């Protein structure tokens, strides 16, 4: 029973940390959707670009990968603005399906561009303040430094974005644009500028996330997909466009994917030999999507969604 208690504690901590990481990755996606009603399929590729930015610039500048985070954010923001003015602006004139296929095409384009220049082999950061470090916080509860830093960055980013959207004039203009673009235009708000700003904020947040994650995760051109699927579930679960929703949903998903070790500990504590074969690790993402499905059926706008 003691083992079960420790395992629950371990899974809770691990779930919370990983949930904050998922939320961090999903933040940019929900900002862009909230403002423009556009689902950015290339979101994971922005993450990949952020990861490569830190991986490549850190040895080039001779600094720790953590110090390249502002650069990764800047590259993400510039990429977001470029994508907006070069592609998304034109897609907005077309039907919804054109927007979907447009960002999907952007995803394929960025991924193959990375494949061309970076090759397909996964790469890792070998040295850094966060690389290979972890902290023992309790009986058997170990926190990986990069994940912990990403969790702290996640909380910080959410606070900044929340403050920016709710407490600043520009943020209110963004909210106005997302509520009624035409009305906002009549009020003298440059919606074009607001849209570009949303892409810049979205790109920057996921760029920084990428720059930090590369301290732990290997990067390859297809790495975005691993996180995008979870990011989509996070955003949809929390409610499209809701910043608070993305945070809560990320944490819920973090907890769900950390359930299997608790289940294993329960089986061990009751010594259920017959249930030993019933391992649920391979179903952990199935559980995430099952919860997502349930929420969609019971509350289609998501947990905190305000857009139908």
């Amino acid at each position, binding site marked *: 029973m003691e083992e079960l208690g420790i395992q629950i504690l371990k899974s809770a901590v691990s779930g919370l940390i990983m949930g904050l990481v998922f939320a961090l990755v999903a933040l940019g996606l929900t900002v862009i959707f909230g403002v423009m009603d556009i689902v950015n399929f290339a979101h994971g590729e922005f993450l990949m670009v952020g990861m490569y930015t830190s991986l490549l610039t850190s040895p080039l500048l001779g600094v720790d990968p953590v110090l390249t985070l502002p650069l990764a954010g800047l590259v993400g923001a510039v990429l977001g603005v470029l994508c907006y003015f070069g592609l998304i602006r034109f897609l907005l004139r077309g039907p919804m399906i054109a927007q979907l296929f447009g960002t999907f095409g952007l995803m394929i384009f960025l991924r193959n561009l990375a494949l061309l220049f970076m*090759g397909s082999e*996964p790469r890792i950061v070998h040295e850094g303040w966060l690389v290979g470090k972890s902290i023992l916080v309790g009986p058997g509860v170990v926190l990986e*430094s990069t994940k912990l830093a990403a969790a702290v960055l996640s909380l910080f980013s959410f606070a900044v974005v929340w403050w920016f959207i709710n407490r600043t004039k520009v943020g209110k203009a963004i909210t106005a644009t997302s509520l009624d673009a035409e009305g906002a235009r009549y009020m003298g708000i440059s919606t074009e500028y607001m849209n570009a700003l949303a892409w810049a904020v979205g790109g920057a947040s996921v760029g920084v996330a990428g720059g930090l994650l590369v301290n732990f995760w290997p990067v390859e051109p297809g790495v975005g997909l691993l996180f995008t699927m979870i990011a989509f579930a996070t955003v949809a679960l929390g409610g499209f466009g809701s910043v608070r929703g993305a945070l809560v949903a990320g944490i819920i998903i973090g907890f769900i994917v950390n359930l299997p070790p608790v289940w294993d500990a329960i089986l061990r504590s009751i010594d259920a030999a017959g249930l030993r074969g019933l391992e649920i690790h391979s179903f952990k993402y199935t559980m995430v999507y099952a919860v997502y499905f349930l929420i969609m059926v019971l509350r289609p706008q998501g947990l905190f969604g305000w857009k139908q």
Partner: protein
Amino acid sequence: MRKIALKAAIGLLAVMLVPAMAWAAPKEIKIGVIYPLTGPAAAAGRELRAGAELAAEIANQVMPGINMDMAKNAGIKSLGGAKLTLIIKDHQGNPQLGADLAKKLILDDKVVGILGCYYSSVTKTVSAVCERYGVPMINGSSTSPTLTKRGFKWFWRTTPHDKWFTKDLFEFLVGLTKGRAKGVKAVPMAEINTLAAACEKTEWGSNVAIEIKNFAKEYGFNLASNILYAAKSPDLSSEVQSMIAAKPGAMLFASYTSDALLMIKTLKSMKAKPKIIWGQDAGFDKPEFVALGDDIVGILTRSVFLPSVVKMKPLSGQVNELYVKMMGHDLGGASARSFTGLQTWVYVLEKAGSTEPKAIQAACNTISIPGAQLVVPWVGIKFSTKGEEIGQNVLGGGLIGQYQKQKDGKIGLEVVYPFDIATAPMVYPFQGY
């Protein structure tokens, strides 16, 4: 009269020439080669391609420095010196694309046979196409045991498969407890009796998990945790937590590169301390994995070829020298097996003396290539023609290598199993994180 005689002579000559032309040996023999040249396994694809190309190069010209039959002739001697032409295609890791490429190679390019495909899932669909068209396929590098359990008449596999490799692992563990490992005193059984495994949930990984489960039972080990995880997962911490909680003596993995890297990083972050970590090749045998440096010292991986084999097999050294000139690095598991796959094609064609599918089929079923001809440390190549596994080479064998720090400070693989050919003392226990 003279005109009639001339016409008759021309006619006779024509009649004599027709069959002679029909039976003339072809100048080139096309072999279709299907490998993953782009996509997640592109790095392995490059090695596989280079291995096959080097074998074709040796077969197509006389190479006095190589102590191998196929290096003594230019081309296939029994086919009038016909040269091999490889038509190389990229399946991108996609089984459907692989099947389409196989059809194209058979129908449009009129290949004599096919070599491929590395991914077991692609080999499965490609071999099904070959079976349908009655075209021979030789596989050198796919290790799913099910491939040779289908009773196919046109499919032959040179590499040992996962069942053999997993059996090697358990033989190794038992040997370790009996003090048979070089440089290690007999390890108490209680120390390594409990096992925890994590295999990716794919055709290959699922089969490895089944083999581990079966052999653990057969050899009397306690498999406390046998996890199938979603391949290319963004987070493996829950899997690692469950494995550590099982307090295993040995942790066993079947993972491709990015998962293998993430797995080691997660094990390190959670300060795992098993006595043994073993990987079923794939991600555990790639340059990116080796780049993890000190974190992998002591980790074991199964393989069919390790650079240290060169120390005990001069022929491997001769071929390896050419490979290093070509690629800038040593032969590895993928390239050596691909080399052997194409080499088998050369010996089969030589024996068949014909490009007719039936003749090739007969040659495959009766061929016997001695181990002395091979770069891989096997007894030889001889395909099973009856029983449970039709088309499987019964003379193959696996190796278990251990990452150790070499004298020059680099991390390299040393053979620790089979015990009698170990190239260095084994490091036991694993240092832990």
